[in-house]
């Protein structure tokens, strides 16, 4: 899906937990996330902290969208 949408010329950032799969399916901008059933959250922490965590991940995704890449890139912290 990532690849087909990116083919239209729109930048796509893929947020997922299993980075090797993302690399295999051909995503170009990748943000590693928390866990498979809750990529953008963590039920073990306070709701307030969870929102902060999610916000950080989304900010990282937006940063990736603002970054020129020439090849598949994994954006760690």
């Amino acid at each position: 899906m990532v690849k087909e949408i990116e083919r239209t010329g729109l930048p796509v950032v893929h947020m997922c937990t299993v980075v090797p799969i993302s690399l295999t399916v051909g995503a170009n901008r990748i943000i590693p996330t928390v866990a498979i059933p809750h990529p953008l959250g963590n039920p073990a922490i306070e709701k307030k902290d969870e929102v902060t965590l999610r916000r950080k991940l989304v900010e990282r995704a937006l940063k990736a969208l603002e970054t020129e890449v020439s090849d598949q890139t994994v954006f760690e912290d």
Partner: protein
Amino acid sequence: MKVVHYINQFFAGIGGEEKADVKPEMREGVVGPGMALQAALKPEAEIVATIICGDSYFNENIDEAKATILEMVKQHDPDLFIAGPAFNAGRYGVAAGTIAAAVQEELGIPALSGMYVENPGADMFKKDVLMVSTRDSAAGMRDAVKKMAPLAKKLLAGEELGSPEDEGYMARGVRKNLFRDDRGSKRAVDMLIKKLAGEEFETEFPMPEFDRVEPSPAIKDITKAKIALVTSGGIVPKGNPDRIESSSASKYGKYDIDGWTDLTEDNAETAHGGYDPVYANQDADRVLPVDVLRQMEKDGKIGELHRYFYTTVGNGTAVASSKGFAKEIGAELVADGVDAVILTST
């Protein structure tokens, strides 16, 4: 000859998605599908131990899982390692391929796996690990065992393997020298004639597929950009109005989130059957971050959150289907003036 077998928590009978986070454990002898495999391997070989690991645990902790399992395999020093078959279970396929490749490379023990050709683990590891091509569900277990057992025996005996077509494994891109009756120039002309006549012919050198898409240019000013959300994690409005299937999805959904500031257990849920749905059903922002993007829109950190989000279930869904969905979605996003896309996967 000794064989160690790797399976996931589901085939071990431990549980489904709610148990996908169990850590590696080793049991003596056969477990689950190992029984059929064992019967087909006799009398040449015996499955001395079975290693079980939860699919999510493995994929979320690849390095730790790999290290622990390699230690377990070492204890038995087997002559062969078999992982799977994983059919079309994506995380299981990735785990089976990863651990089989590691056993081969780090312990020098030959390994064998099996899965459906569209399993992401197949593309990742078919060049390194001998992999039988199976059906897409466990209904193909008998067929998988029928192909895996003879290959296992050949590996144990150190016999040369036949071609991928003859033996039912996935081509590894290995070239072998062999003698043909006709010389190359004649074979090439024969092929050309068939091609001109519009007849079927078989190339002797299939070109590898490199289907990569160039990265699109970056967004200049994200505070002016219209951002759309897309997910393969199956988030849908409560009640799943379009009945998107929990696996092998045949459709995607497009939902209006105009005015939505937060996903809650009252307005959203997941339709996905391939992961433990408890956390997403409690708070679907954990998969589709509507809450924080809405806040960022308000704070002027992004231009706009696109009014619709698109969703499907990426669980055993055919590659051709997802391609088709994404083509339509992409065209609509462009037509709607979207500048960039956040795609989330579980």
